[in-house]
Every structure is written in C-alpha cells, then in structure tokens.
C-alpha cells in the first residue's frame, strides 16, 4: 500500500497538538475523520485522474461565490451551505459525510464549553485560523556525509582464505 501524506500548516498543526494534549481521544477521532474525508477525496480524484489538492480547490470554488477571497470566508460560506442543505433536503442529514461533520462539530462544541467525560475544565485558548498562508514545508537539515571504511585499513587486519602450496 502506498503511503499517503497529509500536509498541515503551522497553525493547524498547533491546533491539532493542543487538541491532542487536552483531549487525546477526541483529537484521535477528529484526525481519523479528517483523514477519512481526505482519503475519500483522494480516491475520487485518482479515479478521475486528477490531483486531489486541485480537485478540492475546484470543488470549493465551484460551490462558493466568487469574491470570497480568504479561506475564512470560504469556510463560512461552506458552513452556511451545509446548514441550508440540512434544512431543505431532509435525507441529506443521514448521509455518512454529514454524520461525520456533525460529529466533528459536536466534539468541538463540547471542547469549547469545558470538555467531555468528567467535567474537565479545558481552557484552550481560542485559535483564529488563518489558512491564507501557504503551508510551510519542514526545513530539511542535510545529514553529515557517511564516513566510509577504507579497504586499505581492513585488509591488514583480516587475511583472505589462503592455501599455501
């Protein structure tokens, strides 16, 4: 199976990190859901022979109005659309993807009011996501060159299997 890579920007990574430390079970489920949705998108775009990132971008642009420049605007529009769909077409709220999204929202809501399971007070700072910046790649540190053994130093220490005539 080929490995899949999920690239996160710094702020999303921090958010996930905070979730993981304050609510490990919830963060795991959220990550799983995010990955599941991502993989579904990946599969669909591969079948159609498209790059998944471009497919996501095109999908978002197709259903949001032009003029919403920032990612925050787009997210708000998507939210509004989802709410509208939920109200207008009853069957949609039973689809798996809507269930997943509802689950994420519930977890986030619960975290916001003070935690799940036992009344832990979670005073997570509010994070204002601004995904307008492009994701920054991790800076690679070049490894030091491997020090190679030299045959000349080995040959004196170990002799070859030899027959003396």
């Amino acid at each position, binding site marked *: 199976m080929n490995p899949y890579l999920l690239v996160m920007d710094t702020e999303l990574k921090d958010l996930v990190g905070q979730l993981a430390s304050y609510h490990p079970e919830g963060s795991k489920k959220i990550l799983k859901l995010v990955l599941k949705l991502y993989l579904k998108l990946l599969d669909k775009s591969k079948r159609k022979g498209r790059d998944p990132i471009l497919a996501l971008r095109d999908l978002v642009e197709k259903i949001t109005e032009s003029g919403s420049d920032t990612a925050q605007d787009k997210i708000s529009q998507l939210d509004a659309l989802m709410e509208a769909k939920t109200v207008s077409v009853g069957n949609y709220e039973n689809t798996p993807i809507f269930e997943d999204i509802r689950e994420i929202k519930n977890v986030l809501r619960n975290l916001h009011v003070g935690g799940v399971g036992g009344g832990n007070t979670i005073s997570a700072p509010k994070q204002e996501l601004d995904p307008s910046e492009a994701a920054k790649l991790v800076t690679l540190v070049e490894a030091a060159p491997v020090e*190679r053994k*030299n*045959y000349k130093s080995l040959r004196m220490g170990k*002799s*070859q*299997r*030899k*027959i*003396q*005539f």
Partner: protein
Amino acid sequence: MADLEKCVAIGGELGTSTSKFCCEDTIVIFSSVVGSALSEGMEKSWRLMNRTADTRWIKNLAVFDDSRNCWRYVGAMTRNSEMTNWFTNKGLIQNYEDAFLAIKAGVFLQNLEMKERGKPITNIGFGFGITVHHGENVIEEFLTYIQNRLVVRNDKKFLCIKAKNVALNEVMEIEVELDFSVMQYQAYGAYMAFLFKKFNMEIFNTYVIDVGHGTWIKLPIIDNEADVNLADSISEGIHTITKNISTVIFESSGQKFKIPEQRIMERLPRKEFMIEVPGAGNFDFTALLKRESEDMAKHIVECLSSDIAALSRKGKSIDYFTVIGGGAHLLFDSIKKEIGRYFSWSPEVLDKKVISASEIGVDPRYINCVGFMLLARDQIAVELGRDVDQKFSVNKVIQETQEA
C-alpha cells in the same frame, strides 16, 4: 619459500561454459571441455587435411595428462575428440584431472602472452572463486589435489606443463612455481573490481547478480564481507530462456523441427533474433525473447526484494547493485528496470545505483576473474607489506573464436 617479488597474480574461474584466466591486462578464455586426443597417425592426417588458417595455440591446444600418460585436447581442439567431458557443472568441478588440465592450459596460454612481452611467468599467486552452495571445502580439496601433483624441488613447488599446438605439431614445456591460492565466493570478484576502480577502495555495500548459462547467483557484500546466509545459486539462466524459445518455435512450426537451444544462444550476442526452421519458415523471436527476459528479471528482483527486507531488519542497506556474467548483456536493462520499479527510483537515481561492468572498462563476462586477479595481487602486496596497485585494465582478450 617463493620469492614474492617475482610473483604474478592470476585470477581464475572454471565456469560451466567457459574457463577464464586473467593476468595483468590479458584475459584468456576457452571452453570448459577436455577430450580424447587423436592417435599420432590420425593427427598427422588431420594436419594434412586441415585447411584452417587459424593456427593459434588456443584453437589447437593439447596438454599432456601425467595421470593418464597421454595427450588430452582442451577447449576448441575437442572438436576432433571422440569423447569429451565438460568438467564443471553448475559451477562445481566434476572431474579433478580434467579441471587440472584446464588450469595448466590457462597458465600456459597466459605465459605465452607474457613471454611475447619479454616477461615470462616464473611464480604464480592464484585467486579463485568458490561456488556458493558448495563452500570452501570443495575448492580446497581441488587445490590440495593440485598441490599433490606439483614437483617439489628445494622446498619449492613447481607446476610442470607440456603443451602441444596440434596444427603446427609444436611442443613446448614450461615450469612455473606456485606459491599460494586465495579464495572467495564467486561474484565477489566483480565487487573487487568495482572496489579498486569505481569505489576508490572505499567500502560500499554491493549486491551482485551473476547470470550464467544454467544458473544465476546472488551475492550481497556487506561491509566488505560476502553475506553467506543470503548468497545463493538458483537453477535458472540463459539456458532457461533459450530452451523456452526453442519450445515455442517447435510448437509454432507445427512440431516439424526442434531448433537446438544452442543455435538460439549463438545468435543472442550478435543480436540476431530471426531463425530459419527448415520446411516451416523464418521465425522472429524478438518479442518472445523480450517477454522471457522480463519474466526472468521479475523473478530475480523478487528474490532480491526478500534479501533487501532481511538486510533492513539487520539495519543494513545496499549502496550499489550490479548485473554480471554471460547473461548480463541480455538481462541488465530488464533487471535494472525492475529494481527501479521496486524502489520507485527516478531514472537519475537508478542510473547511479545500478552499475555496469562496462563503466570500469570490463566486459561483464570477465569481471569476476579480473577481480580474483586483484585479490591475488592484493595478497602479494599484503605479504610484502605494501600498498596494492589499484590500477588495472583489460587490453587483450584471447579466445577461441577470432574477432572479425
């Protein structure tokens, strides 16, 4: 005690099809077959009727067999033998007497060449390849057999060779002092050649695939040592491919005529992929050859991938892969492609990681015996307390068929 200052390194490989000997920049290669000689009278008649212009020693060689007290033909000259004996099978020596004659033939022919250059061979240090399956004991037995047949004089051991050029009716006798023989697993020779020339004496883990006529050998060399646990000899080679092609042609031609696989084998180095079947027509086996080569390459890389996994578990990795032997000309590209596919390497990375003997100016068929020569050369240098001379090249190949 031999005078190592005069000792000449010779690399030897007694293969299933051909025996090869490397000395300095010269390779001598002849068929691994010994046969009965004609009687004196028959030889005389043969000389009278022989119209061939090729009167070279390698083409018309007989060596005197002390154990049988008679002449025996070696290599190409066995075309006139009533009975022939291929003395190596799947890399293992089957008949010590005949293999010993091959050693004498190889040393004699190398000495002829060196004599022409004004430096006849007087002392020899051998480098030999051991078969993977059979281990050191088998080759040690053979070398002990040789040792017991050397003439001892003043604590020195001499190999006495009496050889005849049957076409010219010329007999020559020489004697050379044998000092030692060092041994390594077959295919290790190729690693030595790369070590000296490409790796500049730095240790790189190398995976050697040696494709021969009847078998292919895999030998990973890790930290300068052959990994004996992963080394293996598999009964599949060029013969498998040519036999399958011969079978398909037989079936396709309505089972009229069976083409001996040898005829197909002869065409491969000349890149002639058309063969005539009497009464049935011409058959172009290009596509068939491609498919067979790809299938074999896939199988080889499957075995390779298991070894890579085993090495990974020990925290080891391979720096370079190489394909050598008589089958390299046919299979190098297919195996390289499969390796690239397995690792998902880009073409640039693949070109760096999969190396060819031709990169260091040696034919993949001879690279092993060149490496064994370097092994012997290194042993001489070690015993003399010196640095080994890294430089080598192959400038002359003496073989039975003359190049056009």
